[in-house]
């Protein structure tokens, strides 16, 4: 099973036991986000990736420019451990 299928199963399980009003809030948030046009304003294939310099878990700085020196970069935006 792929990641997306696992997540969809998890969500179905959650939605089956969560209070109705909670599920409604979550669905409305997704709908509103889709309608907000946020996807029109994201970076696109063919764009130059904006450079950044951020700290890793030890406080060491990593810049996109330096990372690209070694090869292509797969970049994933991740919400957090919770």
């Amino acid at each position, binding site marked *: 099973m792929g990641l997306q299928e696992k997540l969809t199963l998890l969500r179905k399980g959650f939605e089956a036991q969560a209070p109705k009003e909670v599920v409604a809030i979550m669905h409305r948030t997704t709908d509103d986000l889709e309608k907000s046009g946020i996807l029109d304003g*994201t970076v696109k294939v063919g764009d130059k*990736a904006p450079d950044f310099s951020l700290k890793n878990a030890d406080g060491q700085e990593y810049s996109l420019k330096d990372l690209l020196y070694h090869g292509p970069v797969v*970049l*994933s*935006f*991740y919400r957090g451990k919770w």
Partner: protein
Amino acid sequence: MELDALKKSAGDFEALGATFIAISPQLQTFNRELREEKKLTFEILSDPGNQVAQRYGLKFQLPKDLRAVYLKFNIDLPRYNGDDSWTLPLPTTLIIDQNGIIRHGAINADYTLRPDPEETLSSLKKIVA
């Protein structure tokens, strides 16, 4: 679960000569916890206030009623992120080539979905071929 899948794929990305990097708005200390708990082999960079996510057009704010739901489930975003903006990045995976050009993008407006690492891997194979 998402990180377990990415941990598995990170090795495949690296075998193709790419570097896998995650960016999260959470404070450095939570990234350190995560790295130890999951024994991660890739770096997670901390993006305070989602400033980099904003430059990539990925930052969004959670509505007030959803914040209350999160708090009820003990997800105290201001504590994790170190600010009270209640903002997150859209779940996104990008492949950036060595010239700094984005060659593949999987961006979900549905924040409950995640880009599929298998799909990223097959795109990367084409890009480095």
